[in-house]
């Protein structure tokens, strides 16, 4: 029981890191980027390539798994995403689905369609028992990393100049420009960080979630659920939503395996109908 | 003459802490040429939105020809005989004026769910649409995509569409707003020529138009009615003058 709860929390934490970038681009910047999972996949494959071809250690690959997707994100934001900020959600959806399809096929072409295995260092493998509850070492590690990142993110968004500038730019671009905020650079940077975090999540999650070219499609809906259920006002809502979904999904798959992802989708539809602004949305 | 065609009783609307409509009791007499004026942000449009059902009042009652319509949906109020124009054009931009008028007429006649009927199946409605277009000086643009019409023509269509519903109460929300001088006269004539049996409530900023048109004026400031009476009395009212002097050039 408690083991399931623990696994669910680890899964939820991971979902949060994966989706946090989307929480900002969709929640704050109001851009529907379904291709968010492609950046996560990029991070995962960076780790795989570095470990398998260059023999790097798992931990050493993590910063690169952040940087490479962040860089790709920055370039794409500057070139392709930016002109679409003003377009309809439908256009944004179609465009980002296009990116997903391209990334899926491209990774398939270069890396093959098989599942990639990521070997975490031996000191992170196995479980230890705490009061009869089996605790996975790697999952504890993931939870610890995710907590650090979540706290850091919340701090940056609410307490720093960068955060207040971003919120100002999102509220009213023109006013923000008038105040001398470089909105373009700010959005690029935000997008890059969001993509980088997704990449980091992809690398961390490869062991738990699996990694193959269809990753962006498989998890697209999960990221969207985290953001829409969590509400779009900040990061705390998506954080709670991610935990809830993580626990519910793990528990559901354990106790009701035949229902599959049924419950999660049904919950999402219900939440969207009853509270379209999200479960945890506070007045902004 | 004593039964008002449209009436609000103690209407209140709060947005959070903001009191947008403060206990407004208002009467529109049959056949009236009534103007509702007030400085920017006085709550005029909020008031109209409650009359038409776009915004739900917090308290109070709205009666149309004696019937309580406070909870009715906007489309139901149209069928009950009240239609409106919008301060900012709300048109079907991909249609032609003929199509837009036919839509209104079709809905008026309850044909909106007829999925197997042709648009021109009721020739009389087509002719009526053409006649309305002519009345509102749109006959030369009847088959032009609305989005490409001049702003003045779009304003005329805005009124024509409201008129086509054959309302007994017509709410005109700043009909002349933003219309360039060259097209303005057409518009003023159209407003002046509305049939007498239609009761008109004009919400307007433009004092020139208000005093030319209205036989009765209500002044709204901060959601509260501060004066109500004949134009001459309103013009002389010190409270009204104070409210408008504070507003500067808007008067």
């Amino acid at each position, binding site marked *: 029981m408690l083991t399931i709860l623990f696994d669910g929390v680890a899964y939820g934490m991971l979902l949060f890191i994966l989706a946090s970038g989307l929480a900002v681009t969709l929640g704050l910047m109001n851009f529907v980027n379904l291709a968010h999972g492609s950046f996560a996949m990029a991070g995962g494959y960076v780790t795989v390539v570095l470990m398998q071809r260059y023999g790097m250690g798992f931990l050493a690959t993590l910063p690169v798994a952040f940087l490479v997707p962040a860089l790709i994100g920055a370039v794409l934001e500057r070139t392709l995403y930016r002109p679409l900020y003003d377009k309809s959600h439908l256009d944004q959806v179609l*465009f980002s689905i296009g990116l997903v399809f391209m990334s899926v096929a491209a990774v398939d072409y270069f890396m093959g369609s098989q599942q990639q295995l990521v070997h975490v260092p031996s000191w992170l493998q196995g479980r230890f028992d705490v009061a009869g509850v089996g605790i996975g070492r790697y999952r504890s590690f993931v939870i610890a990393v995710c907590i650090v990142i979540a706290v850091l993110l919340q701090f940056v968004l609410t307490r720093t100049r960068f955060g207040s500038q971003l919120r100002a730019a999102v509220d009213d671009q023109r006013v923000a420009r008038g105040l001398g905020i470089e909105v373009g650079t700010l959005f690029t940077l935000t997008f890059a960080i969001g993509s980088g975090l997704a990449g980091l999540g992809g690398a961390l999650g490869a062991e738990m979630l699996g990694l193959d070219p269809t990753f962006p499609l498989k998890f697209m809906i999960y990221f969207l659920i985290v953001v829409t259920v969590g509400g779009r006002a900040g990061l705390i809502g998506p954080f709670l939503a991610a935990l809830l979904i993580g626990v519910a999904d793990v528990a559901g798959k354990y106790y009701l395996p035949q229902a599959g992802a049924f419950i999660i989708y049904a919950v999402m539809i219900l939440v969207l109908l009853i509270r379209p602004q999200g479960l945890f949305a506070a007045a902004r | 003459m004593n039964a008002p065609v449209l009436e609000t009783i103690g209407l209140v609307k709060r947005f959070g802490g903001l009191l947008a409509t403060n206990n407004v009791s208002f009467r529109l007499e049959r056949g009236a040429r009534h103007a509702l004026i007030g400085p920017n942000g006085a709550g005029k449009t909020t008031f109209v939105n409650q009359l038409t059902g776009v915004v739900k009042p917090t308290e109070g009652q709205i009666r149309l020809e004696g019937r309580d319509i406070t909870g009715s949906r906007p489309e139901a109020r149209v069928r009950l005989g009240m239609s409106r124009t919008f301060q900012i054009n709300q048109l079907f931009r991909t249609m032609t004026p003929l199509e837009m008028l036919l839509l209104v007429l079709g809905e008026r006649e309850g044909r*909106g769910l007829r999925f197997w009927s042709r648009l021109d199946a009721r020739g009389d409605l087509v002719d009526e649409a053409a006649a309305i277009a002519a009345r509102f000086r749109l006959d030369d643009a009847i088959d032009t995509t609305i989005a490409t019409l001049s702003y003045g023509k779009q304003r005329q269509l805005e009124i024509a569409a409201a008129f086509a519903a054959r309302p007994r109460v017509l709410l005109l929300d700043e009909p002349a707003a933003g219309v360039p001088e060259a097209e303005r006269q057409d518009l003023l004539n159209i407003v002046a020529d509305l049939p007498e049996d239609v009761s008109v409530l004009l919400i307007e900023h433009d004092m020139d138009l208000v005093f030319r048109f209205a036989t009765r004026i209500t002044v709204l400031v901060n959601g509260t009615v501060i004066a109500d009476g004949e134009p001459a009395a309103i013009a002389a009212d010190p409270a009204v003058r104070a409210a408008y002097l504070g507003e500067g050039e808007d008067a």
Partner: protein
Amino acid sequence: MNMASPTTPLPAAGTAANAATAAGTAANVASPATAPDTASPARALLRRRRAWKPAEFLFWGAALLAPLALPRSMLLMNEIAILGLFALSLDLILGYAGIVSLGHAAFLGVGAYAAGLFALNVSADPLAGLVVAMLAASVLGFLTSFLVLRGTDLTRLMVTLGVALLLFEAANSWRSLTGGADGLQGIAMDPVLGLFDFDLKGRTAYFYSLAVLFLLFLAARRMMGSPFGLSLRALRDNRLRASASGVGVNGRLVLVYTLAAAYAGAAGGLLAQTTQFVSLDVLEFHRSADLMLVLIIGGTGWLYGGLIGAVLFELFQDVVSAATPQYWQFWVGLLLVVFVSGGREAVHKAGAALRQRVAALFGGRRP
């Protein structure tokens, strides 16, 4: 605007055969002499608007005669006809009523499974199966229509996506009914109308699908030109004004969503019957996404967009997958990206120019 129209407007209802022969007459009548307007110019205007254009006769004539030119490609043509019907269905809600959907495959899938199960368990008659497929899909459409009435485009995109995913999961889990990942196999259909046996070359399949597509297209053309169709366009253009004009929003949307579901169900039914196989693939996400691309290629809100898009999409797929079948999705993705990032405007500008030229050639009126 004084372009010629056929002197006697042809009724919208007709059969493929008389449409094809009428194409000749229409082209002959179309000369720059205006038919005298009778009682009212406005009535004449509306009649002219709904009259069949020469290009429409050409389009359907070409569809009817295509097997003569390419007798070996009838299986592909069958796929085109089915995809065209599916896209027509999405056009009804997206192009006319302005409802976005990322889960239209749900209705295709339900139609396909309904037709497949009906053929396996009840009767192998194609037309009866088609009716069942349309009914099943329209029941789902009616029930889920209430989910898309409110909210923003974003919530609609997600709710429709969610419904399609739910259905996929359901079909995947309920193996006893759907066969799970193996799908429904061994569907054998009776001859169409008891006369035309399904053949390996796909001749019966194509003409059957084309006939269904044509009839449903005629119905759609009539319905979208009705007061109901006009009210849908009103809702799409401006909901505020629509309700201020007396349009009851919910009733219209429920009706059109149910209708579109029935159309998609028909496409699914045709797919199951002509391929004699149903698998989870009919409910896959890529079906809904591909469909969007089809409609973007052809343009929304004029009924032919989905059909033309289907032709181009399938031809493109045929060429590209012949070279690299595995990476087909890459090209779909690239097309989506290019189209949204500015390609669409360019294509539609070129398309409009082409239409104008064709229109000038036939003396017809631009749609």
